[in-house]
């Protein structure tokens, strides 16, 4: 009996630790940001007015300022930047999927020794710093960069073409950086795929393309969604890549957030931007969760 309850305590402790971690480092900061987003900006340190105020003995005024959110809604800049961020991350996610799906498939179908080497090559870029890799792309894409030099040397062009500081560079950077996050969940999903199902489909008269559409694709949808979310969510809030490879020409929400915090020192608006971004990202995730729960309920 004592041993059992001890064991149960251990179990709850093990569960408690990550919850405690999330509480301290995720939920608490979230509420702080939420609070700031509902405060009024001022020139002081910190640059916002307190939300609560003692007006009388035992009477406390709580002031919630929704101005910051209204401001986001009224100013086209923010709305368009959100749209642009979502557009860039959506297109990048689709490219990651188009490149990553065949790669994951090829890795799963490779023989054991090759498989490990191929997986290693997917993970290898993580061994160098993310910033270094983005700098490397700057070197490749610059006007006097490797790609332009090579094209000129080959006589294909005689003037360097503008690659760096364009939307194109941002797409290249995001797809390059986030590709492993698409491949790995897809690989994990495909690894579990029962290959006999593909044989069964062929046996029943399905040509390879039909087998892919009717069996392989539906069976790997969970991997596609997991990989898609892992690319889409961080790509939407991406700051470094559009800043370094897009220059000032590509506005994404991460850039706006940075500007509001550091240039305008308008913490309440910056917090509102962050909260709105969270909503934009959390809603599709919740939708996905809901669909998943429904599906597992059906099982």
């Amino acid at each position, binding site marked *: 009996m004592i041993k059992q309850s001890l064991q149960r305590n251990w179990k709850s402790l093990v569960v408690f630790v990550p919850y405690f971690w999330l509480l301290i480092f995720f939920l608490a900061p979230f509420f702080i940001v939420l609070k700031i987003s509902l405060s009024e900006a001022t020139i002081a340190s910190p640059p916002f007015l307190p939300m609560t105020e003692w007006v009388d003995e035992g009477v406390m005024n709580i002031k919630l300022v929704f101005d910051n959110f209204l401001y986001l809604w009224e100013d086209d800049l923010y709305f368009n930047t959100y749209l642009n961020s979502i557009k860039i991350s959506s297109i990048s996610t689709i490219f990651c999927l188009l490149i990553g799906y065949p790669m994951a498939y090829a890795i799963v179908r490779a023989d054991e020794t090759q498989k490990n080497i191929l997986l290693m090559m997917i993970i290898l870029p993580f061994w160098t710093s993310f910033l270094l890799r983005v700098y490397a792309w700057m070197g490749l894409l610059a006007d006097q960069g490797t790609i332009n030099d090579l094209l000129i040397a080959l006589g294909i062009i005689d003037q360097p073409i503008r690659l760096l500081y364009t939307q194109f560079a941002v797409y290249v950077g995001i797809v390059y950086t986030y590709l492993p996050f698409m491949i790995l969940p897809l690989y994990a999903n495909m690894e579990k795929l*029962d290959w*006999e*199902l593909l*044989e*069964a*489909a*062929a*046996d*029943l*008269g*399905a*040509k390879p393309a*039909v087998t892919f559409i*009717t*069996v392989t694709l*539906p*069976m790997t949808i969970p991997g596609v969604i997991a990989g898609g979310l892992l690319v889409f969510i961080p790509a939407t809030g991406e700051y470094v890549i559009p800043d370094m490879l897009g220059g000032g020409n590509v506005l994404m929400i991460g850039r706006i957030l940075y500007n509001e915090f550091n240039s305008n020192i308008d913490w309440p608006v910056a917090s509102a931007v962050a909260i709105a971004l969270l909503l934009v990202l959390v809603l599709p995730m919740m939708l996905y969760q809901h669909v998943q729960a429904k599906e597992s309920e*059906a*099982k």
Partner: protein
Amino acid sequence: MPDPSNYTDRPWMDPEAEPFIKVQSVSKHFGDFTAVDNVDLEIYKGELFSLLGGSGCGKTTLLRMLAGFETPSSGYIFIDGVNMNDVPPYERPINMMFQSYALFPHMNVEKNVAYGLRRDGIAGDEINQRVDDMLAMVELTQFRKRKPHQLSGGQRQRVALARALVKQPKVLLLDEPLAALDKRLRENTQFELMNIQDQLGVTFVVVTHDQEEAMTLSTRIAVMDAGRFMQIGTPTEIYEFPESRLVANFIGSANMFQGRITENGPDHVIVQCKQPDCEFYIDHGVSIQEGNKVWVAVRPEKITISSEASDYNGNNCIKGIVHDIGYLGKLSTYRVKTADETLIDVTSPNLARPKDGNLAMDWDDEVYLSWEASSAVVLTK
């Protein structure tokens, strides 16, 4: 005695019949490993043909070559006269029931069964009709909207069968069709399969490691070992007239004794064995010389065990003591030890109920074993 000129049940005996499936000197190598080693095989229309053997004997590889999932390293496979070597699986007139059933987990029973028909571009009404009929036949109509994971093992097996049969293939391949079922379900399904095969006239090729399954189901059996056929024949032929020790041991059990031919007559042979020290009189001739080393196989149920010496006249009989008894209800198995320490297995039906709970023969009783001249088989390999 069946009419020898009536071949409907035994097409392989008919000199005029064309084989439906023809495997011609087919080999399959995986690297250094030879899975199938230069085999020839002819299977006729309407047969229920079993490939029987232990794991790794090449039976599954051969089946997969018939389905088109593997290509032969050399040799040809003909189905209905057409060379199948370059025909992909999705264009073969063959369907397969997988050992794992390989049902599509994201489709319900109905969609699983309809899958093959949809691929053929058949009209919706006809698909529905055929799926309905097939589900009725395998008694799954009320489960049509269920997903595979909501079904029991036996139901899944029937879905797999329905899915393979609904396309009305010329040949149905079954990979260990009953292995995943429990014993009672297996027996029922065995007879169901035979009925369906009879009704539809489809040629069945079954891969199995279970000799009992092969014996019950098949018109003919091919016993495989190390990528080759050891023997091809009807269940009776294979059981009663095995051609080698391997086949005799693989199908049922057999007492195997080594000896030399001392007399080789046109209608009988006499084999002298050292262990047990005994002369075997066998009433079929063999085509080898006197003095050659041979093996004599006697099935345990073909030996009569008795505590009285009534049949004991020196020919095809031996004396021993009961070393072990296994009581199985309808029959008992005895292990009898002879004077020279040879162990002989005997099975004997328990015809009479034992008196006062005592068995007719008990441990360490002296017993007499005897068998007919037609019971033993002489094996040369």
